[in-house]
């Protein structure tokens, strides 16, 4: 019928927003658990750190790998944020329309979107700071180095805000993603939605608790450890590195 080609961009944008969100959410689920290794022991956290620095693959550590990974995540983060921007209210009239609607409706999933919007906006800034630091100073990760950063470089407030925003954003995002594309929906979609929502709530609570516990642990190490001789590398009891 029509000769012109279909404009595929809207489909591409929608899909890219979803897939980058999915990648970032999965990344965060791993990230919070890996950093929580400090709750087991300093030794455990050290082992996780050197694993990401490639020790178990190459026999020595390359913090550059962390820079590369953080850079990769940063690119996905920017693409996701850039595409998601098209959903933001982009003028005062739209902003007021949404505000009036949200306050009038008192509807849970509309609130969830408002949370997505606010946490997303917040993370433009605090997420970028964190990612840039990881790219620039990849070797400053470890039981003592991370704790120093948290306490003495005043990053605890930033990490606290980032933790709350990223966890709520990620799990609300996954819930909305499942409903957006009809992922694994059962015959009764009301039941599958209720299940997804329950899962979302459980994950948000569990991950925030785990994240806060780790942050508290880093703060306590940062406060107790003696940094008078500078931030020295953690000395492992089991792994001896020749070039360190």
């Amino acid at each position, binding site marked *: 019928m*029509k000769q012109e*080609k279909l404009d595929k961009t809207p489909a591409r944008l929608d899909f890219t927003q979803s897939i980058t969100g999915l990648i970032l959410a999965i990344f965060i689920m791993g990230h919070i658990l890996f950093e929580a290794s400090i709750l087991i022991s300093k030794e455990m956290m050290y082992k996780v750190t050197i694993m990401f620095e490639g020790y178990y693959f190459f026999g020595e550590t390359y913090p550059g790998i962390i820079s590369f990974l953080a850079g990769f995540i940063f690119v996905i983060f920017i693409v996701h944020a850039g595409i998601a921007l098209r959903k933001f209210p982009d003028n005062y009239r739209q902003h007021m329309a949404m505000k009036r609607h949200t306050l009038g409706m008192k509807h849970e999933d509309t609130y969830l979107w408002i949370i997505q919007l606010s946490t997303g906006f917040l993370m433009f800034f605090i997420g970028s700071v964190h990612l840039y630091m990881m790219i620039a100073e990849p070797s400053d990760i470890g039981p003592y180095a991370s704790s120093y950063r948290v306490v003495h470089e005043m990053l605890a407030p930033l990490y606290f805000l980032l933790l709350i925003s990223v966890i709520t954003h990620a799990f609300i995002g996954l819930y909305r993603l499942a*409903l957006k594309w009809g992922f694994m929906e059962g015959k009764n979609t009301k039941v599958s939605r209720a299940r997804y929502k329950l899962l979302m709530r459980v994950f948000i609570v569990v991950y925030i608790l785990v994240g806060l516990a780790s942050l508290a642990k880093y703060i306590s190490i940062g406060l107790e450890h003696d940094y008078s001789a500078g931030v020295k590398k953690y000395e492992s009891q089991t792994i001896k590195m020749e070039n360190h």
Partner: protein
Amino acid sequence: MSKDKAPRILKIDILRFDPHDPEDFPSMERFEIEESHGMTLFIALNDIREHHDNSLKYDFVCRAGICGSCSMLVNGRPTLACRTLTSKLDEHITLAPLPLFELIGDLSVYTGKWMRGLNEKLETWIHDKENELNVDKLEEKMEPELADEIYELDRCVECGCCVAGCGTIQMRPYFKGAVGLNKIARYHLDPRDKRSDEEYYELIGNEDGVFGCMTLLGCEDVCPKDLPLQSKIAYLRRMMLKTAVKN
């Protein structure tokens, strides 16, 4: 109503405005009426018109949730007044007309005009060039399951609740809304409609269509007919993506 308990006095605040009167401006007016057993908002509004103010404008036809005329914002949420029991509400009730639609006066809005525009834009009728307008020809048979599935989506009464409950459309009025997307899902299911996936993509494969939906699910949660809107929008999204990848 049990004998030992005095009936509640409902305080109903109604947003009054006549857009055709240049002197008038929007204001809330309170009416107090006695609640009766099994009272719906339809009965309450009739009571107000009969005993308090006969100039109150609101729409009703079937008073049984079939015609879709009596949709309004009840305490901020769109719903059908005839299916809303006052006993389920607090004694203080706020009523306002649906947003976005042309206001006729008070609670009465012109949903029909908006819906007609939408239907014309989306061409919500069977497209079959080969058998155009042959009313004598017997229709092809259809599996009962498929007929049921189509009928399920055809239950939409165009009341406009999903439109008023949608945050996306409040911000971006060109968005087709769940009512439009549901209709496309309905015609896409129908084997008598010969439109290709590409032709459907032309209709809704954009940000005024399915890719504009932000999954706030207001539509799904306020639909008085309980249509599976979330699941149908997801289905269209997958289908449109597939069409884009295929081309």
